Every structure is written in structure tokens, then in C-alpha cells.
């Protein structure tokens, strides 16, 4: 046995005391759903974890009604200071139960414990801490004095960062004074339900946060609900598009964080070893189940061979296997469906003439797995260079000049993120200026912080999460009925504030022409 065959170092599951069955979290209590319950499984073993309730239309009605009551009677009347204190409490409870949450996340999602433990859960706590402090400082959110909350927020989140996406959605919503109905993804409901227990421990007033589980139709019913004032969705561009159509003509505010096909640009003067790490982190972090993944590697042609060679060496040291083992680098693919999509697109890559190389990994017998894979000889016209694969598959393309790198990077309907690797500051800043993407990582990749806005250009969605911008997405500059008091913006006498990109002023609700959008919002998966 070689030293590199590290002995198993499994994180203990004893910290987790799961129930056999989970209900919906509505109005502060767990209640049985009226839809057909489903099983959540571990994608690493395909073993059943627990039975999960499914919310039908009546359950969605109840959840929205509970959120509305809580908004009207409690949360919108509470001082910002007290809202903030609840959020601080939640942040602390997340820290106290961090290991338990990490284990649940890795079990249900398949991601390596070192990521859930060192990235996801610490960021969840950080997100609540950050927005907790905003709750009594909304005058400084950038919308003028005394901005208003929106009401009930419908939030639908994906399976790739189940708890982190929950935090991205709930923390700013509550800080701004909204109440929430959140639907986690069908394949990863577990951590959200444990989070519901944390809300009970925090004594958060009933109905302020409601968590309803179910499949895509539950999410569709929630987004379409008339009692909802704000829709926040993270997921596929297809579903995001359907949501945008569905809310057309309503007065719902919308933020969408959708797909991506990020370019990771490596210049020939890049700090090479860190660039290799950044490429690996960019596409193989979380099995590539990352909307901002650096899935298109653009390498300056004169260093292409060296980069690819070093990349292969590095990938050969990645450890694929049990997500709960502390030494696992690559966990399980989240679902059979996703695995099939990755396989299908990879096969298309081969058929299109790209050269495929996969790291030598022992693939476990059960569960859903895909070895880290690189495609070279990929052209900009290849489907694997255009479509979001959402898996551990990297397409390598080349460029000759900065202008060509920028042109290729921007040649996509997406615009979520991008990476730049170079030792030359002026070039980094100039390239960053030209890239049409909402988050640019220079000499680093896949960094997240609650203070840092995140979100896309073009078909990667609109609105930002994180930072002051993420807070503004849950605020309205003109509280209903208080317009007369709000003439404070430094503008001519006729000036009035209006909202940012994703929003329009409140208006009388119109009947949306929904005939074209009835099929909207099926499925919340990325």
C-alpha cells in the first residue's frame, strides 16, 4: 500500500439525528404535505435517507398565507434592530450546528465533506451575519431613506449548493423585512429541513420563513401564486426564462441567477502553478455543479501543451469517492438524470471530434459518478463549448491575442463569470473591463463572500445576490402609502426614485396574459 492510499477518514454520521419522515415547514410547524411524498437518497450510494413531503397547491396556498400573515402582523412591523437580532441568532445557530449541517449536505447532495464543511456551511453563517447587520441600516442600501420591504418572497433554489443558496435567498429577504416561502430542490431537501429546526430554536416568529418541499410543479405553483410579491430563482436558464414570462405583467419583482459557461482565460505569463489550481478549482469544485464554473478554458496557444500536461498531472492526484471521507476531492454527481446529461454531452464532444481525457479514478459500484474529464481540440462551435454541462467536464480552447481571448470569452449567450490568469496588472484590468460577465476572478476562481455581489449579464439572469446590491433586490424605494414623505433624492423637483434593472415601480396589478406561459417553471434543477 502506498502512502498516497490514505486510509479511510470518514466524517462521523453520528452527529446527525435524522427523522425518518419530514413534513413541510409552514407557519412555524412541520405539517404533512398533501402531495405524494418522495424519498431523498444519497447519490453516493443510492440509499434512502428519508421520506419527504410534497406540497400541492393547497399547501402552497397555506404557506403563502402564513407568510402573508407573518408579514402583515409581525415581521413588517418589527424594528430593523430586532429583525437583525433574529438573523444574528440564526447565524450563531448555524455555526453551532455546522458539522451536522455539513454532514447532512454531503449525504444528501454528494459533495465532498471538505467542501460542505469548509466552504458551504461557513458561508451560510457568514451570509446571515452579513445581512443581520443590514436589517437596521436600510436607509443606506442605496434606495434613499426609509425604503420598504416588498412583502412575500417566493424563493426557488437548486440542488448544487442547497443550504448556501437558501442563505443567499433568506438572509437578505428577512433583513429587508420580507417574509419567505422557500422551495428547496427535489433531490436536496435535507439541509433546508434541518435549517427549519434551527429557525424553531431561534424562536423566529411563525410564518416568517416557510419551507415547502416538492418537485418542479410545487415551485411553479409557488412562483405563480398571486399572493407573492417577489420571486427569486436560482436554476437553469430555461426555467428562469419561463419564470420571466410568467411574471410578465404582474407587479412581482424578480431576480434570476441562471446558467453560465464561464471562460477561464490563461495568458502565457500566468502564475502557472496557481493557474492550474484555479482551473481545477474552477471546474472540478463541487463536481462542476456550479453555475459560475470555469467550464471553458481559454489558453494562450503558446502554452497550451504545457498547461494541458500540468493539468493532467494535477487531475491524476484528485481523489474521487465517498463524499463523507475527509480526503475526498470529487464527490458524487447529484442525480441519475444529471449524470445522464453529463454523459450525453460528453459523448457529443467525442462525436464532434474533441479529444477526451479522464483522470484515472476508481469509480464506486453504486451511486452516480463521473471522473474529472478534459476535452482538448475543442472549437468554439462545439456544443460542449456552448452548452452548460454542469458537471466535471472541462473544454480547452486556445487563443492568440488578448482581443481574441475576449471575443471568444464573450461569444456566449451567458454572462455569469470569468477568470483571468496573468502577471500583468494592466492587462488583467483591461480584460476584466471587456468581459461581459457579472463576476470576474483574476488570479483566483470560485471565491464567494456575502459582501460581494454575484449575478449575471445576458441570459445568466438579472439582479445581484450578495452585498448592498443583493439587499436592494428585496427593497422598494417607495413604501406604499408613504410616497409623499419620500422626495429626498438629489434631483430636480420632478425627480423620483425608481428601482434597478430587474424591477419597475409598484403599479396596479394587471391580469397577466398567461396563456403562453402555462407550462412555465417546471422543475427547479439547474
Amino acid at each position: 500500500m502506498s502512502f498516497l492510499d490514505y486510509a479511510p477518514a470518514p466524517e462521523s454520521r453520528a452527529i446527525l439525528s435524522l427523522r425518518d419522515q419530514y413534513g413541510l415547514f409552514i407557519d412555524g410547524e412541520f405539517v404533512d404535505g398533501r402531495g405524494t411524498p418522495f424519498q431523498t437518497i444519497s447519490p453516493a450510494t443510492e440509499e434512502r435517507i428519508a421520506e419527504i413531503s410534497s406540497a400541492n397547491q393547497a399547501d402552497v396556498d397555506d404557506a403563502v398565507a402564513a407568510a402573508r400573515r407573518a408579514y402583515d402582523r409581525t415581521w413588517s412591523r418589527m424594528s430593523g434592530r430586532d429583525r437583525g437580532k433574529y438573523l444574528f441568532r440564526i447565524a450563531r445557530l448555524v455555526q453551532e450546528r455546522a458539522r451536522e449541517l455539513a454532514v447532512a449536505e454531503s449525504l444528501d447532495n454528494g459533495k465532498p465533506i471538505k467542501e460542505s464543511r469548509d466552504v458551504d456551511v461557513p458561508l451560510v453563517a457568514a451570509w446571515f451575519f452579513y445581512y443581520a447587520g443590514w436589517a437596521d441600516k436600510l436607509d443606506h442600501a442605496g434606495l434613499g431613506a426609509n425604503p420598504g420591504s416588498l412583502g412575500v418572497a417566493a424563493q426557488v433554489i437548486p440542488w448544487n449548493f442547497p443550504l448556501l443558496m437558501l442563505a443567499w435567498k433568506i438572509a437578505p429577504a428577512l433583513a429587508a423585512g420580507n417574509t419567505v416561502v422557500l422551495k428547496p430542490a427535489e433531490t436536496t431537501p435535507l439541509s433546508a429541513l434541518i435549517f427549519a429546526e434551527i429557525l424553531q430554536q431561534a424562536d423566529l416568529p411563525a410564518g416568517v420563513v416557510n419551507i415547502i418541499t416538492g418537485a418542479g410543479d410545487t415551485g411553479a405553483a409557488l412562483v405563480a401564486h398571486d399572493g407573492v410579491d417577489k420571486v427569486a430563482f436560482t436554476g437553469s436558464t430555461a426555467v428562469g426564462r419561463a419564470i420571466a414570462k410568467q411574471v410578465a405583467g404582474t407587479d412581482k419583482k424578480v431576480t434570476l441567477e441562471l446558467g453560465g459557461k464561464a471562460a477561464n482565460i490563461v495568458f502565457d505569463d500566468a502564475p502557472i502553478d496557481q493557474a492550474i489550481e484555479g482551473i481545477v478549482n474552477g471546474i472540478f469544485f463541487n463536481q462542476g455543479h456550479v453555475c459560475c464554473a470555469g467550464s471553458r478554458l481559454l489558453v494562450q496557444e503558446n502554452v497550451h501543451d504545457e498547461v494541458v500536461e500540468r493539468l493532467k498531472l494535477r487531475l491524476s492526484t484528485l481523489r474521487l469517492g465517498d463524499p463523507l471521507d475527509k480526503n475526498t476531492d470529487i464527490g458524487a454527481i447529484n442525480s441519475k438524470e444529471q449524470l445522464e446529461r453529463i454523459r450525453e454531452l460528453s459523448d457529443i464532444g467525442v462525436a464532434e471530434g474533441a479529444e477526451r481525457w479522464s483522470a484515472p479514478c476508481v469509480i464506486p459500484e453504486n451511486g452516480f459518478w463521473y471522473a474529472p474529464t478534459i476535452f482538448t481540440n475543442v472549437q468554439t462551435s462545439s456544443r460542449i463549448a456552448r452548452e452548460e454541462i454542469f458537471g466535471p467536464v472541462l473544454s480547452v480552447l486556445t487563443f492568440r491575442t488578448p482581443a481574441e481571448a475576449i471575443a471568444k470569452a464573450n461569444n456566449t449567450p451567458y454572462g455569469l463569470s470569468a477568470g483571468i490568469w496573468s502577471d500583468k496588472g494592466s492587462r488583467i484590468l483591461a480584460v476584466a473591463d471587456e468581459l461581459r460577465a457579472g463576476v470576474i476572478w483574476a488570479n483566483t476562481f470560485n471565491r464567494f463572500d456575502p459582501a460581494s455581489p454575484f449575478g449575471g449579464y445576458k441570459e445568466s439572469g438579472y439582479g445581484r445576490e450578495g452585498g448592498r446590491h443583493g439587499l436592494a433586490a428585496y427593497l422598494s424605494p417607495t413604501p406604499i402609502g408613504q410616497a409623499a414623505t419620500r422626495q429626498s433624492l438629489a434631483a430636480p423637483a420632478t425627480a423620483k426614485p425608481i428601482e434597478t434593472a430587474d424591477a419597475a415601480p409598484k403599479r396596479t396589478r394587471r391580469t397577466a396574459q398567461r396563456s403562453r406561459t402555462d407550462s412555465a417553471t417546471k422543475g427547479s434543477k439547474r
Partner: protein
Amino acid sequence: MTRLAVPKTYKLYIGGAFPRSESGRTYEVLRADGAFLANAAKASRKDARDAIVAARGAVASWSGATAYNRGQVLYRIAELLEGRRAQFVAEIEEAEGVSRAAASAQVDESIDRWVWYAGWADKFAQVAGNANPVAGPYFNISVPEPTGVVAIVAPQDSSLLGFVSAVAPALVAGNAVVVVASERFPLSAISLAEVLATSDVPKGVVNVLTGSPAEIAPWLASHADVNAIDLVGAGALDWISLEIDAADTLKRVLRPESGPDAAAPALGRISAFTETKTVWHTKSLR
């Protein structure tokens, strides 16, 4: 003996040129009392397409200009407009049938709006952007950038002020625009285009279509190379369908406004057509 007047031909404004509609169509613009005032070009979907191509071609240079420069260019519009006050007042009087005082007030306010927005050009990024104190050794900054090509359905009940109120804020950040002017009061928009053509605004940055918003707007809303659509003047149209069309490529949408406050000056009208870009870079002394 009275001199025989020379009437003006009103055309479209696309890519810095004044073409007729490729369709050859015109429509009659009437005075408030119903009398014939002028023929205006009736833009077609192909004109809209050409305008979008022109706008896209102008984005790089306009957004790449310094903010200081954009501010001066926008201020220059105000200067030129001031010099041609009388023409615009007369046009508005004739078209809208309002008093000279009311027409003057509209022109004054239009000029002042250019001045107000011109001043924002090198400031809005400071107000809408952020240095973000992330928990790590990173320089991290968020800046608003222009979204690209913005299609605008201008307010329909105003000759000049509505047009200016919708166009000026979209230009501040560096977007290029395709504007469908007021169907009833299109002449001031074309006259303003003549001002723009002789100002320092690069060709293609502002493109003006006259004709039927109901006919043209759907082509703008569904065009994949449009990044955002301002429906401020689309209240009388089937704007929900336009919003649905716009969703196909996830365009940023501003919904219709009505009344005297429509498209009132606001920083939000600038930031509505910007994208927040956040740049991270590592920091170290080692």
C-alpha cells in the same frame, strides 16, 4: 407678398444617417386641430433591425469613452438644444397645440434634463458601485457597466420631454439606444436627432424610429441582440406580450409609466440599464 415656406422632410435616424424607411412608407402627422403637419417615415421591422445593428456597432466606442467625455458630450446636447430653443418651441406648439409658455417649459425642462444626466456620467459609478470588504486577501470591487443595446418605446404623450427623459439616462452609462418616438408627436424627436447628428454623439449611439410602436416594438422586444427594453411609453400597447417576448433572451425590462411623472429623472433610470460587475484580485506582499 408672403414667402412660400420650405417644408421639412422628416426621416429616420439610423447609424448617424437620415434614411427614409426601407419600406418606403410614411404616415401623416397632424396638428392638434387635425390639420396636416408633415409626413413622417413609418419605420418597418427591417428599419428596426438596421437600427439595432447600428446601435450594437456603437456600443464599444461609446461605452469605451471616458465618463468625463460622455458627460461633456451629453452636456453639449443641452448647449445645442438651447441654441435651437425657438425651433423646438414652435414645433411643440404646432404639434401638441399647447401655449407658447407650455411649449417653452417643455423645452426648458428637456434641456435641464440633459444637463442633469450629463452631470451623472462620471458620478453614478461612484454611487452605484462598491468596494467590497470580503473576508480574504482580495481586492474586490463592484462597478456598474452599460448593459449594451437598449430599445426604448418613448412616452407617447409628449413631443420632446418624454423622449429626452427616456433616452438621456440610457446614454449616461454608455449604452446605445434604439428609440421608437411618440407616434402622434414624432417631429421633435427627429429634430432632436438633427441636433444629435451635429453634436459630438457618435453615430449609432442614438437611433430614432418613427411610425407605429405597436408594429415595431414586438421586433425590438424579441430581437436577440437587444439587452434591455424600456417600455415606459408602451402603456397603451399590449406591453405584457412585449415583456414576455423580452423574456426569451432574459432582457432587462422597465415597465410602462404614465402621467406627468413618467420617466422622471432618477438615478434608477441610469442603473436600470447597467450590469453590476464584480472583480476580484488576489493581494499579497509576498
